[in-house]
């Protein structure tokens, strides 16, 4: 008798386990994203300083993080730091550290770009109507920066969520790992398991990322029509 792959979801706790795995993925991404946005804004402001030292240091940090594949960074933190400094980091904590480092670098560059894309004459026009430096930032520069930043930041968030699938390789049991386990366990009884399970996981990623992408597109459209 042929066992239908779809039955896998109703065997034992399979369905709940996949959702639990999804929650691990989402929560690691979410924590990393929140810290990254916060630190990235600070980094972006620092990157925008005219100081050559901060410029060089932040540039090197950004390039380093960008050049290294995320997987290598994960191994470096999870295995390297643990061995070298005898600090025991769980896979989850290592993942959050790596994704925060990455997210901060990328977010910082986005903030830097958004800030420096505000033309000089916007500052000068603000000065010309007698605003103080603080008022110029509050009413003119920050609102325009945020409008430019949000669509880009949201794209970064979806990229980060997708890339968390790499943390399988440092032993974190997230949604892909749960899927693998279920497939392994039922390989003999259900040959089509991988199609069903991975198909479902694909669908879950879509459910998480699609609304975020839509939101970004919507904001972008609205602000473009407003002239942001």
């Amino acid at each position, binding site marked *: 008798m042929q066992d239908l792959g779809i039955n896998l979801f109703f065997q034992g706790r399979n369905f709940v386990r996949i959702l639990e795995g999804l929650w691990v993925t989402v929560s690691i991404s979410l924590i990393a994203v929140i810290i990254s946005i916060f630190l990235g804004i600070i980094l972006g402001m620092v990157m925008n300083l005219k100081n050559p030292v901060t410029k060089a240091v932040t540039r090197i940090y950004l390039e380093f993080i960008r050049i290294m594949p995320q997987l290598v960074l994960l191994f470096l933190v999870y295995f390297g730091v643990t061995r070298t400094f005898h600090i025991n980091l769980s896979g989850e904590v290592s993942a959050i550290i790596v994704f925060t480092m990455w997210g901060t670098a990328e977010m910082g560059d986005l903030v830097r770009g958004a800030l420096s894309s505000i033309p000089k004459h916007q500052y000068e*026009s603000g*000065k010309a*109507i*007698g605003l103080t430096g603080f008022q110029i930032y509050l*009413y003119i520069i920050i609102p325009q920066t945020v409008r430019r930043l949000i669509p880009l930041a949201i794209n970064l968030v979806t990229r980060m969520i997708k890339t968390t699938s790499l943390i399988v390789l440092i032993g974190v049991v997230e949604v892909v790992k749960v899927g693998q386990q279920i497939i392994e366990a039922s390989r003999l009884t259900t040959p089509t398991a991988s199609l069903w399970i991975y198909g479902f996981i694909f669908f879950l990623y879509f459910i998480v990322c699609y609304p975020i992408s839509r939101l970004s597109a919507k904001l972008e459209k609205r602000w473009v029509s407003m*002239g942001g």
Partner: protein
Amino acid sequence: MESTEKILEIKHLKKEFDNTPVLNDISLDIHKGEVVVVLGPSGCGKSTLLRCINGLEGIQEGEILLNGDLISNQKKSMHLVRQHIGMVFQSYDLFPHMTVLDNILLGPKKAQKRKKEEAAAEAEELLKRIGLYEKKKAYPRQLSGGQKQRVAIVRALCMHPKVMLFDEVTAALDPEMVREVLDVMLELAREGSTMVIVTHEMQFARAIADRIIFLDEGNIVEESGPEEFFTNPKTERAKQFLNIFDFDSVHHGSNK
């Protein structure tokens, strides 16, 4: 319209960028209700002069007084000084994330702490006068270049400045939009506004100016009334400069 009350006094102003002198020993008084047009070849320092007056650039020597108060190199209180000096720039410099009305009201509300209703009533009145009242809720990107510049002028006017500075405000405009902006400025001149104008529109300069200042290489080379300057310039340099705006006609069929 001219009176003897000095609005702006510039005394022996010197300005350098990285040890390259841009303005040398400029002295100039601007009286209430006077329209002064600053002419000169590009790079002569005319825009820099306006930027120094408005404190966007510091100066190395000399002083600038507004109504008798020293305003040059006042880092801390410069924002207060600028509330009395209106400036309109060459680039369309409206704030893109705000409507026309909010653009105009930002200064009166936040810098001058005026009541919104009172400032809004004035802003709407000014918009009616330049024929853009129905655009008050539009965003800058929905306006033409000429409309943006007219709004920028109103934005500066709404602060009740003692003097208005215009830095090549029509230089980035399409030719057919230049006129509408210049008309607004002529209207202001008729009403007795005190204005300092940097422009390349010679016909306009001749029509609007009470006095022409001709700058070259950071020096005031010539200072005279508009008719005199355009018909009978005193200096060789001014003659040369004015010649660039005359063209010998090229007749059809003739060889070069």
